[in-house]
């Protein structure tokens, strides 16, 4: 298991950088939006929490197809499935590796990007907290979607289509936390919901992913 994790992390670094790139995509989306909607500070600071969350979600989404597709194409997944590692464990570890290379950097970068989007001062804590509790769910749900589409050549966009509705609750609660935080309101309830979603998906979805992977490997 740990071997698999270190291998995945190492691959992410070598392959022109899972780390750097997920992050830069986040950055770029955040930078694009002011060009799109125009540079008024008041407007920007109003939409900042939402845009940060949407950008984080898209950055996660884009790196999802790496989770299993690469291993499927070069035959590693067949070999992993016949190895002593349980497939549930493989699915969980791969989601974890995805979170470490994509989710975690986003959490750390969010304050900086908040500055770019003129996020109000009270909003920094909540955006970081909400991403911290929300991104694990994004990775696990995403790993499920990636497992579903792994047999399909370039299932990338199909993957987005399948995963996005699954992301909705996480997004809604996450953005709610961030928005309430930015407006200085209480945000405990949505934060708890968010943590609940993350915990539940972490506990259950790896099993679904493993089931689906087995079907796809047939």
């Amino acid at each position, binding site marked *: 298991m740990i071997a*698999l994790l270190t291998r995945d992390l190492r691959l992410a670094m*070598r*392959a022109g950088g899972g780390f750097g790139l997920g992050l830069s995509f986040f950055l770029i989306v955040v930078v694009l939006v002011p060009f799109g909607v125009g540079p008024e500070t008041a407007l920007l600071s109003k939409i900042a929490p939402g845009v940060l969350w949407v950008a984080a979600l898209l950055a996660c989404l884009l790196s999802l197809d790496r989770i299993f597709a690469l291993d499927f194409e*070069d*035959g590693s997944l067949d070999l992993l499935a*016949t190895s002593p*590692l349980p497939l549930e464990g493989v699915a969980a570890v791969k989601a974890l590796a995805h979170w470490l290379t994509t989710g975690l950097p986003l959490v750390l970068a969010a304050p900086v990007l908040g500055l770019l989007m003129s996020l109000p001062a009270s909003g920094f804590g909540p955006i970081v907290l909400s991403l911290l509790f929300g991104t694990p769910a994004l990775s696990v749900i995403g790993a499920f979607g990636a497992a579903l589409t792994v047999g399909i050549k370039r299932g990338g966009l199909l993957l987005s289509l399948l995963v996005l509705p699954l992301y909705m609750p996480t997004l809604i609660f996450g953005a709610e936390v961030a928005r309430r935080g930015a407006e200085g309101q209480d945000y405990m309830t949505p934060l708890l919901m968010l943590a609940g979603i993350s915990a539940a998906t972490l506990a259950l979805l790896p099993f679904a992913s493993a089931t689906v992977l087995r079907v796809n*490997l047939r």
Partner: protein
Amino acid sequence: MIAMELRVDNLTVARGGLPVLEGVSFALTAGRALVLRGPNGCGKTTLLRTIAGLQPAPVGEISLDREAMAYGAHADGLKATLTVEENLTFWAQAFGTDQVEAAIASFNLDELRTRTAGTLSAGQKRRLGLARLMVTGRPVWILDEPTVSLDAWSVKLFADVVREHLKAGGMALLATHIDLGLEEADELELEPFKAVSSLGDSFDEAFL
């Protein structure tokens, strides 16, 4: 190692929802190798994948658990950005063994040890892929055309490794079109098992 046996009994294998081979039976005992022969498209790959437990068999029995088998497919499962050594080490850890050095020595990969797998030539990649089998520590090797793009000298190297494995009580099941120089291996011609086009009722009542 306890003496074990791989016994395949009246197996039907299917691909794309259709049976390809029917009624395949054979037994493989410790220390023996079996070479599967048959023209292109007769179903060798499908049979090997079924035995390795990667796809279900509609009919028939396979006596050994997939836990005993190491499967070597056409694709080698190498990571282009990892070095030869890192590739092997990962699989050794996944299978909980520590035979990386032995594998590197057997397949003469020592010079290539620090090269990333992506820069190897076709034959060198294949050698690395075969070395992976050694680090699994599994007794039954299931190999699909293992010597594709190997030169004569490497084929001999491979035959020696297989012989060594058999001597230690292992088994090998291979599909190939090329002569491997494994004279002691049994052969099984798959042509006679070709599925006839009408199915038995049990396979899928609806779609006879």
